[in-house]
């Protein structure tokens, strides 16, 4: 039975989504099921994570078809960390959605689709088969298309057209890459591919395939110059949806990039150079983009792009220290970005606007809430000892070690600009005198909604803030975790053996 353990997070999400469909119009029941289910999911994920942490990489062959012929599910420490983060963010957003998304939107199957999205994410992290990864990606994007359009406002639909087109294009490029890879090697199992790609004679074709993967995943993870869909769409849906998108959707692209470039296409100097250059440009363009925006959610959208650069830059340097920095940053970023978009939702609930120019006087009127918002905002900047600081140490050390001074400059420049952006936001929204915003007649302001809704909005923000405080103050634990993941990723033979020769590793 323990062998099937890694399926549990996956199955649980699927059961939740199906169960929720039976209560299509009863949104109060859906709220309860979604929240309780997410709590159970978190508990299960912690359990499976602990099991994998103690017993090493676990694999399951679906339908007992031996690898490389069947579909393999692999739970190594990296995959389980991502699953755990998914359920943390999922729980927070599930509660937050109950409080902040209006009933008219919830009635169109919001919660079932939300759990299908989490199902897709969990599956994408656990699978060890490249075509299966494509299928999970499709589940993710189809669910995200529905979530981004629920409500059908003008801006939402326009954003959705752009979001749809580029994500579809990314999927097709990913599919093309799989086709070429299958033509080259005749295999789809990632561990088997790692062996076979290394043996392919025609290196030029391998490099082209790698570039196709880079473009496909690059669009999904919004790296330079493929990020334009993100700031055009992420601020349009309700902030609960932006929160789960901002926290996890781009990160699944980063996960796929890390997986593919540490397992299948390894040790190619040319590719590492490309990754490094793209990462530097991503850092610069995201940071500069955030500087000029006025809508808070657009600022955060550009900061997502900027901070994707930190993860890609670590991958590009490709040393153990750098990868550890990347993983640490990923852990920190998922929690903080989810929280930031929830905060933008809270600000919107209170004032009815997300424009920095119009907002003001938060610190004078809501001192406790402001202190709460301080935590994720300044975790993002990386003021020590908050969480964003620690991964940058690894990344900066790594760029000194590999004498990559451009990366060093980009890392420091981007964190400086992030500081400027957040300081500007703090000054505009929190310190500036409150300005009169004309009251919107039908809008459900924070002071008008029921207390239970207030709790549902505040609790997830507190929860994620506590998690990011833990990441900051318990940095040693996360550092141990990311170092272990990095050493597993750098030595891809471990992964290959766990999939192809399970007897040896057991």
């Amino acid at each position, binding site marked *: 039975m323990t062998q099937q353990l890694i399926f549990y997070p996956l199955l649980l999400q699927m059961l939740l989504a199906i169960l929720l469909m039976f209560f299509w119009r009863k949104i109060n029941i859906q709220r309860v099921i979604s929240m309780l289910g997410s709590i159970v999911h978190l508990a299960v994920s912690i359990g499976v994570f602990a099991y994998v942490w103690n017993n090493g990489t676990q694999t399951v062959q679906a339908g007992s078809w031996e690898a490389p012929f069947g579909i393999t599910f692999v739970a190594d420490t990296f995959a389980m960390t991502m699953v755990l983060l998914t359920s943390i963010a999922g729980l927070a957003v599930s509660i937050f959605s109950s409080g902040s998304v209006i009933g008219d939107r919830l009635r169109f199957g919001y919660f079932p689709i939300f759990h299908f999205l989490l199902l897709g994410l969990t599956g994408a992290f656990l699978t060890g088969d490249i*075509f299966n990864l*494509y*299928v999970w990606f*499709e589940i993710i994007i*189809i669910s995200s*298309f529905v979530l981004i*359009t629920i409500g*059908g*406002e*003008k*801006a939402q*639909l*326009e*954003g*959705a*057209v*752009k979001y*749809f*087109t580029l994500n*579809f*294009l990314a*999927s*097709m490029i990913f*599919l*093309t890459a*799989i*086709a*070429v890879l*299958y*033509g080259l090697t*005749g295999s*789809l199992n990632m561990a088997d591919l790692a062996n076979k790609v290394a043996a392919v004679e025609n290196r030029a074709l391998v490099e082209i395939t790698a570039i196709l993967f880079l473009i496909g995943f690059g669009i999904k993870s919004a790296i330079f110059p493929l990020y334009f869909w993100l700031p*055009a*769409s992420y*601020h*349009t849906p309700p902030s609960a949806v932006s929160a789960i998108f901002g926290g996890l959707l781009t990160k699944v692209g980063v996960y796929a990039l890390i997986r593919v470039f540490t397992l299948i296409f390894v040790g190619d100097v040319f590719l590492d150079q490309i990754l490094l250059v793209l990462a530097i440009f991503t850092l610069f363009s995201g940071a500069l983009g955030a500087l000029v925006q*006025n*809508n808070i959610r657009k600022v955060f959208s550009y900061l997502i792009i900027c901070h994707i650069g930190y993860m890609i830059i670590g991958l590009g340097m490709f040393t153990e220290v750098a990868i550890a920095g990347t993983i640490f940053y990923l852990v920190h970023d998922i929690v903080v970005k989810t929280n930031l978009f929830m905060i933008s939702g809270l600000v919107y609930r209170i004032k009815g606007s*997300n*424009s920095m120019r119009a907002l003001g006087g938060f610190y004078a009127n809501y001192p406790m809430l402001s202190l709460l918002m301080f935590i994720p905002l300044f975790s993002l900047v990386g003021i020590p000892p908050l969480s964003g600081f620690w991964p940058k140490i690894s990344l900066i050390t790594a760029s000194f070690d590999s004498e990559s001074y451009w990366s060093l400059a980009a890392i420091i420049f981007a964190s400086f600009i992030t500081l400027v952006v957040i300081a500007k936001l703090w000054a505009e929204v929190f310190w500036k005198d409150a300005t009169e915003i004309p009251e919107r007649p039908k809008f459900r302001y924070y002071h008008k909604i029921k207390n239970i809704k207030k709790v549902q909005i505040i609790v997830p923000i507190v929860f994620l803030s506590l998690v990011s405080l833990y990441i900051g103050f318990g940095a040693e634990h996360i550092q141990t975790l990311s170092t272990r993941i990095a050493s597993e990723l750098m030595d891809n033979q471990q992964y290959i053996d766990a999939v192809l020769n399970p007897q040896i590793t057991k």
Partner: protein
Amino acid sequence: MEILLAIIIGVLYAAGIYMMLRRSLVKLIIGIILLGNGANLLIFLLGRITKGAPPIIPEDSKVFLEAYADPVPQALILTAIVISFGLQSFAIILVKRAHKVVKTDDLDEMNATDEDS
């Protein structure tokens, strides 16, 4: 046969991407459909085309005796067709709604998301 297919795939990809780059929403859908079909044919081609050799082991044997058609790409295509079919139908509905709400089918006029608010 391979060369013919390769040309068709190239044309489908090129036409699909060209259509996606146009400003009209309807052409966007056509582009999506062409691109999806191109990708499916590419998988089919790269699985190597073997004519008249189904992957069935003869009754009196335990292994394959001669070259056979690889069934995996066909399973992949089947999956990909279903997925792209779902995506295309979503795209049609999305474009219909967008056209109704925004009252234009010109992508250049869809700039409400870039407005400063």
